[in-house]
């Protein structure tokens, strides 16, 4: 475990400027991602959970340099992704891939599936041109698609099949790191299981690292090795999976975990209900961002922003309750 992690994110920030007035001056910032840090070793999965609007997707996109960062560092194989020149970035792109949430809007309706999957592989010359056809077929079979699907168009496929196409498209480039942005949220339960199993199979086959973004905690628990919980752009807790699910420390994590309905009518519920809803990220509360909804809030929570502290080995939490 001493070796360098595949991807390291250090204090990453992404602010979107808010403009208003006649001169369109910047009057404030939406702090979509406000200083998150974590690392992912090769072949492992990091789960990122949180409510909608907490910056999970922006974090994923900023890591891939699909959005420009505001501050912080993203190190891929020890190199800062944002310092790489245009030409070299082009060569690095295939190694960093993303699978989007909605399989209905992320596939071009005018391209046949074979072309959707193979286009980027051809452009990046992943395989010699005479092997290209076989290569696309192989990737499709790996992802549970049939060869005759090549000439069909996305509208002829069901949601689950389309998500397989999205996965095949990402995989065709031999990536090392894939951001899975809510890949199963739009699918039915029985199809969800098929896609999750496929992602796991592919991970062990190609030694992929995933950043698995989801709001479904049970799915995250199933697939991840480490889990980060985000609230309003900040990471509130970050720990190995078994640790965080057995001993959630941050009050938000506790509430989030207790909110999940358990499919057992006799399950004794012990639910922490959070009051109100998530505040606007353009005008976040002072101090600890969670203090407005926190049942355990103390006077200092309003003023002092808590630092990330290591409460147990490998278990990081940013809350005044656990300050060393």
């Amino acid at each position, binding site marked *: 475990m001493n070796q360098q992690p595949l991807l390291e994110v250090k204090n990453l920030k992404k602010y979107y400027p808010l403009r208003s007035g006649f001169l369109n001056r910047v009057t404030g910032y939406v702090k979509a991602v406000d200083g998150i840090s974590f690392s992912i070793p090769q072949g492992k999965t990091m789960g990122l959970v949180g409510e909608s609007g907490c910056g999970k997707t922006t974090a994923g996109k900023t890591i891939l340099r699909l959005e420009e960062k505001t501050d912080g560092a993203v190190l891929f194989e020890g190199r800062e992704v944002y310092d790489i020149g245009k030409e070299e970035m082009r060569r690095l792109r295939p190694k960093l891939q993303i699978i989007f949430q909605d399989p209905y809007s992320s596939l071009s309706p005018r391209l046949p599936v074979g072309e959707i999957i193979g286009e980027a592989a051809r452009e990046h010359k992943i395989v010699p041109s005479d092997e290209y056809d076989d290569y696309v077929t192989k990737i499709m079979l790996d992802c549970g698609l049939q060869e005759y699907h090549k000439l069909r168009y996305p509208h002829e496929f069901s949601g689950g099949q389309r998500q397989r196409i999205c996965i095949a498209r990402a995989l065709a480039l031999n990536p090392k790191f894939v951001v899975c942005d809510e890949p199963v949220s739009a699918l039915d339960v029985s199809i969800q299981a098929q896609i999750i199993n496929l992602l796991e199979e592919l991970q062990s086959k190609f030694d992929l690292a995933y950043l698995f973004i989801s709001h479904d905690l049970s799915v995250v628990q199933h697939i991840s090795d480490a889990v980060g919980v985000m609230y309003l752009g900040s990471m509130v807790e970050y720990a190995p999976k078994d640790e965080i699910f057995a001993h959630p420390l941050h009050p938000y994590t506790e*509430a989030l975990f207790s*909110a999940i309905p*358990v499919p057992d009518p006799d399950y004794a519920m012990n639910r922490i209900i959070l009051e109100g809803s998530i505040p606007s990220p353009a005008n976040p509360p002072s101090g600890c961002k969670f203090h407005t909804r926190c049942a355990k809030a103390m006077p200092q929570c309003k003023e002092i922003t808590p630092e990330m502290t290591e409460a147990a080995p490998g278990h990081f939490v940013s809350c005044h309750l656990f300050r060393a």
Partner: protein
Amino acid sequence: MAFWNKKQNGKKSLDPNYISAADSARIARENRKITTAYEKKRSRKNVPESEYLTKMRDPKNVVEFDDVHTYFYTDIGTVHAVDGVTFDIPASSTVGVVGESGCGKSVTALSLMQLVQRPQGQTVKGEIRVNLGDKAYDIVRTPTEAMTHIRGNEVSMIFQEPMTSLNPVFRVGAQIDEVIRMHNPEMNPDQVKARTLEMINLVGIANQEGVYGMYPHQLSGGMRQRIMIAIALACNPKVVIADEPTTALDVTIQAQILDLFRSLKSRINASIILITHDLGVVAEMADYVVVMYSSRIVEKGTAREIFHDPRHPYTIGLMKSKPILNKKVDKLYSIPGSVPSPIDMPNYCYFRDRCDKRFGRCNGAYPPQIQISDTHFVSCYQYAPENEK
């Protein structure tokens, strides 16, 4: 190329979904005839009540679905969206309807409201009996005129998408007022407003006067869903249909809304039909569970029976395929294949091709409902006695 194959094979094309323009036009013509007849019957004025009066099988039930068939007459064929659904809603209980998208759970509920997309969608067979206290109506035969007094008044609905089901150009107060005014013409404006404020308060919004004057875009998703609930409950309905009420919401907000439902349930005297695909939500809320697959009910029973003793292979598969918090599995179970096309349903068990327990008898006709206990029914040959076929 596909075109060439069609010619070579003569009548039958290779593509099972292929339909020629002439065929499509013919189907459309025939559909028009059928749907116009239904529409004419439904929009008659001054229909004698005796025509749609009916008797409840069990007076303790609020709603009884009895062999309901709702079809959609489309240009490529008739879609059997609901194909013989039978279940009861007992008074002040919650019935959960679960199933994948496209299995007909929403259409079942919409049939009860007579809100199926018309004219192409029609309930063609069966009875939906609604208990109105001293009498009972058969919704299938009720004309539109009489239906307006039931819809929103006796039976109301909470829709899935709180963002799109409120009118963006009216203040939320006015939208609740409207429902109350429609069904209580004797109330004066002040009484209506007082009732609206009471409803807003009931659904757990503290700032009633403020919210009364707000537009939907000023509210968050959870607040909007609360307003939807207030609208649904405004006329003290007997049955509330909640169609995926929490699917569009975050888990913490979902917890708030489910909590609200639970506290309301003890205060209002209504039955709830909870339509969802989330087994966790059903387990938490429902007394009875109905599992639907491809337009039919495959299993129904009390929540405890369904969750502790699932019998149908589909129900079992559904339970196993969902990862459960703090329960470790190496590989999730996944049901192979996908749902059959709703236009071209097989004449054997709809689940046979995906079932891992299929055997000889599954090739026979669609399995009948087999009774396991007083309340537990399943449609699967595994549980049928050997001698009967």
